[in-house]
């Protein structure tokens, strides 16, 4: 009888342990999925920026055609960003593109006609918003990565993570805050 009770208790504990294990495992999977989803969101926004650039370059060309070097730089940076692979390489390429775009926007300041163009204004709003969306999706991606990385390091989830090969993810940095701020022109 005593043996039976001990067996039942042991069995119950094993079942409880298994349930607890599955709960942690599912939680980790959910977090990892969130990281993947938010990475996809960054991807969508970066693509959107790539799509906007040819249109922008065409519009600027109509008013400031002789600013060839800057325009070519933007086109080149875009091509590099489109073909880049992997988190780190893409981060670097997108940083280059952001820099080139920033320089283009500086030049645009000198063309009042261009700044009054409705088409350009609409493009500018789209570009601002896309830049914001890139920033916000990166922000959310990094938040999810942080949450996931913390989760797989703390007890007890780290045991499950170690057993089931959950690896930590890398943060995505396009640029630091100082670079991100649009340069101010002063006369």
């Amino acid at each position, binding site marked *: 009888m005593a043996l039976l009770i001990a067996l039942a208790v042991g069995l119950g504990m094993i079942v409880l342990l298994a349930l607890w294990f599955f709960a942690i495992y599912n939680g980790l999977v959910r977090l990892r999925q*969130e990281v993947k989803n*938010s990475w996809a*969101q960054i991807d969508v*926004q970066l693509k959107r920026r790539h799509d906007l650039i040819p249109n922008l370059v065409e519009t600027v060309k109509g008013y400031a055609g002789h600013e060839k070097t800057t325009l070519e730089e933007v086109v080149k940076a875009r091509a590099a960003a489109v073909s880049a692979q992997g988190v780190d390489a893409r981060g670097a390429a997108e940083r280059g593109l952001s820099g080139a775009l920033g320089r283009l926007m500086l030049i645009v*300041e000198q063309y009042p006609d261009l*700044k009054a163009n409705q088409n350009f204004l*609409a493009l500018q*709003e*789209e570009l*601002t*918003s896309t830049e*914001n*969306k890139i*920033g*916000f*999706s990166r*922000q*959310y991606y990094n*938040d*999810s990565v*942080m*949450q996931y990385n913390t989760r797989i390091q703390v007890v007890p989830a780290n045991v499950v993570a170690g057993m089931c090969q959950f690896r930590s993810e890398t943060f995505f940095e396009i640029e630091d*805050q100082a670079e*991100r*701020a*649009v340069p*101010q*022109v*002063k006369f």
Partner: protein
Amino acid sequence: MWEAIRSNRRRSWWLIAIMGVLLVCLGTAIGLVVAYPHGGLPGAGIALLVWLVLWLIAVSQGENILLSLAKARRIERADAPQLWNVVEEMTIASGLKSMPKVYIIDDNAPNAFAVGRRPERAALAVTAGLLKRLNRDELQGVIAHEIGHIHNLDVRFMTIASVMVGSIVLIADGFLRALWYGGGGRRSRSSSRGGGYAQLIILGVAVLLAILAPLCAQLLYFACSRRREYLADASAARFTRYPPGLAAALEKISRRAGQTKSTNRAVAPLYVVNPLQAKAKFNLFSTHPPTEQRVRILRSMGGRAGYADYEAAYREVHGGKRGCIGAATLESGDSVAARAATPEPAAKQQAVERAREVTDLLDRIANLILIPCLCGVRIKVPPNLKRDTVACPRCGRAHAVPRVEAATAKPGQAPRAMRYARKGGGWESFKCSCGHGIQLSPAFSAPYLDCPKCRCRIEIVGSGSSS
């Protein structure tokens, strides 16, 4: 870090549970009064039934009723591209799975609200006046606040709570009325059946409950509502990484919120600033915390934008240990840096500066006294004004009107000179030598200011981009 909100949510559910207990107690007591001694259980059952019916009505129709009460009309991207973009941005920042539907209300007063019990079916509405008056950062702050309500499931919670309050009020009201008109006869009948003292006590308890329960429930409801406003503000700061945006928007909205035409008591608590109580000081029946305080908290975050930073600012402003979000937040230490302001279009800035120069010139001709306020407003006072103090029209701070004679008459009392060098163009805070905390707005451009506490003059170096 999202677990941080969980402790707040748990506390809210406790409040709902208390309301539920109140409802059941009320039902039982009334049941006992009507039919002693077996009416208790059916009474509680009827109370729950009333709650269920109201709940079903709210669940099936709530959102549409609210949107049509506010006369909102649905828009697409082409109608307001910037608004649409900002909503998309905040959807991404909050990690919501789908973008809420966007509505516009044709009303000149700036305000906004969000509805939808489930995040997937949420909608947010802004007034036309809001779009007209706010810049991009401010609009982003307001939309982030509304998305914060959706993200924190506030709408669902407030629907449940308001249905609870509604049924308690309904039952208590009905009982008191019945007692008033037909009570005497029933009481004499039931006492003749031989209930005795016990019955009399129950009647007393029931009347007391019927008077107190609606009051308690309403107080709990409003307390929840205020707490959730703070939480939504904290979420907005975290999503946008730019607390001054929402702060500036709240100031603009509160100045004009009282003028909203299409408001109605049912919709009022939902708005970002309550249009019916915009000017009122804080009381226990307010649905929103005082706007002034919300602005001060947002402005005290000191270049940070995390939940823990909001919590710290809240404690600083309220001067107490109790926070608004929950202890778990501070432990998790969710602290992130804020971002810089989005630059205004250059043409707009130049026009503003030129207009300011012209008015400055005219003011100097008219001998007006200029008093720079900490919030960035420059108050113009006619030279022959008789009063000693003027209040800032924007933030309400009182300023002493400087007298030319008075300043020269007392050379012995020359205040300790202090200098403060501005670090950049954003919000800055520093301490006066007397220990009083002072906050400078980006718009502050005067060469000096007087400390509001010790009145000593502080020279501001490097303020204003035009100098």
